[in-house]
């Protein structure tokens, strides 16, 4: 409420407000790394809905540092199996962290083997969810990828 009023005031004064320019906002969000994208989702409702609904943001995140861009057919498969956001959360992020690479490092280049492996693991995850009839909610990681999760000390 308060910030909408402020936005209108700004407009009247002719100043730039990012939430009015969603296409520019998208371009900026596309270039963020994983943790920053997560933080961005907490800023306001618009940013939150953008990060949740726009899977291409996550696509950029997943394959930004691949040495050669993945073939176009990858998108159809990834989208069919649950989308890039899920690919990132369930496979890419844990794989990167296990391989010892900080998510904030921008210069790290993925080899195609790492990409292939992530996609294979993502497949297995999707197959397991299909097999269990989509129990336990869309965000719960299926058990095959449990080895990627860090155990919590109770």
């Amino acid at each position, binding site marked *: 409420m308060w910030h909408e009023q402020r936005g209108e005031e700004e407009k009247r004064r002719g100043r730039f407000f990012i939430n009015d320019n969603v296409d520019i906002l998208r371009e900026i969000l596309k270039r963020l790394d994983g943790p920053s994208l997560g933080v961005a989702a907490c800023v306001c409702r618009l940013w939150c809905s953008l990060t949740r609904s726009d899977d291409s943001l996550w696509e950029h995140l997943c394959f930004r540092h691949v040495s050669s861009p993945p073939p176009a*057919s990858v998108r159809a*498969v990834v989208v069919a199996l649950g989308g890039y956001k899920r690919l990132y959360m369930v496979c890419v992020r844990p794989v990167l962290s296990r391989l010892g690479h900080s998510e904030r490092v921008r210069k790290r280049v993925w080899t195609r083997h790492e990409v292939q492996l992530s*996609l294979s693991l993502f497949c297995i995850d999707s197959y397991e969810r299909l097999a269990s009839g989509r129990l336990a909610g869309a965000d719960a990681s299926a*058990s095959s990828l*449990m*080895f990627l999760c860090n*155990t919590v000390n109770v």
Partner: protein
Amino acid sequence: MDELLAVVGYKVRSSDMAEVAEKLERLEEAMGNVEEGISELSNEAVHYNPADISNWLESMLWNIEKDSACSDYDLKAIPGKAIYAPENPNPNPNPKRLKPSTESQSTRAVVVVDSQQNGIRLVHTLMACAEALEINNLPVAEALVKQIGFLAVSQVGAMRKVATYFAEALARRIYRVFPLHHALSDSLQIHFYETCPYLKFAHFTANQAILEAFHGKTRVHVVDFGINQGMQWPALMQALALRPGGPPAFRLTGIGPPAADNSDHLQEVGWKLAQFADTIHVHFEYRGFVATSLADLDASMLQLREDESVAVNSVFEFHRLLARPAAVDKVLSVVRHIRPEILTVVEQEANHNGPGFLDRFTESLHYYSTLFDSLEGSPVNPQDKAMSEVYLGKQICNVVACEGTERVERHETLNQWRNRFASAGFSPVHLGSNAFKQASTLLALFAGGDGYRVDENNGCLMLGWHTRPLIATSAWQLAANSGWDGVFEMDYWNTVNDNAAVLLHKCVWKLGV
């Protein structure tokens, strides 16, 4: 007098503490050896001053040791050093001193049981029990198996678990109580798949070989000798979907044993895979075959089609055929008739099929100790780890306790399989660097798995823990000339329609003329 013990009612001089501890240890050991009820001991001994624990122990020990001197279970009677190391004049060679956290004035010597020594005794006892079983000396074996139980609980971690499973297997062999088929075996395998890399390694390396063999083909057919939950195939279908030019038409024949609860397990797996294939737009066909043994199959049952390229896949299935002679030859002959582009085989890298029991026992003890060690480091939750251990424990039971056709876990080494496949008319296909790199990356993902190693061995890939290889993936194709020296194969499968001339022609060709 020692103050802490005085509080609980015992009078022990501080200077006698080490001696009392030693006597307690001896008493505990002696009580473990006694076969009859311990209540008899307590009746015979007469005590006047129970608070004087030092003298009480002395009299208990005297009573027990006088009884056991003429026991049938005097293990000193066993020749050799298997049970007892040469007499050590100092009964406690390594007393360990622990500084108690509360007391700071006088150091108290506390003797603890040396678990390392017990570990060595545990291994010796296991070996001695196996030796006794090899010569069919059941009374001694029985006594030793009980010892193993006591010694195993003094260990921790992998050693304790392995010893417990082997003790159970030995007991089953002695008492002839053979394990029933586990109702939960599917679930156990799923947990094994999830907690450690062995099955994933097998699937990924075999898939890479199959993918490369299917290069450029438009209709492909995979025959899976052990479909289980079908976990191997989603990744292959995805890789086929992503190849340039689009996916081929994919057909899968899944073979499996009859389900314990008579459910149509194979059809369920097929249905799940069909759903998956549908989501990634791969044309998919499936057929399931229930067979108690792979040797029951014939090539004609598979309804092979003219224009399709076939791959045959076997993950931990071939070794089961060794229980019946000629079963392996029959299956390999069926595979030859299928004329596959590639045959992928994953097997345990160990010789658990030797004729002598003791050798088998020793080999499997080393093998499963290494496997359990590798599991120990993995940080998965304890229930899942326990399920994987039960899965391996079943294999241990089968190797040690069963014989004849019941013993299906007849693992053989890669070189032994190489000889078999070569003499059956197959030549090796080298697994390329793609498979190697994928496998290495996969292993790097397993936390606590610094010990895993991928090695290349003449075109085959082996996964091992530190220096010990544990499983091996190999790939095969039909040799260029499928004749082999002087061996004459009767054409069993096409006898009905072949006329004699054609049959004779085939025989002559196969002789390599």
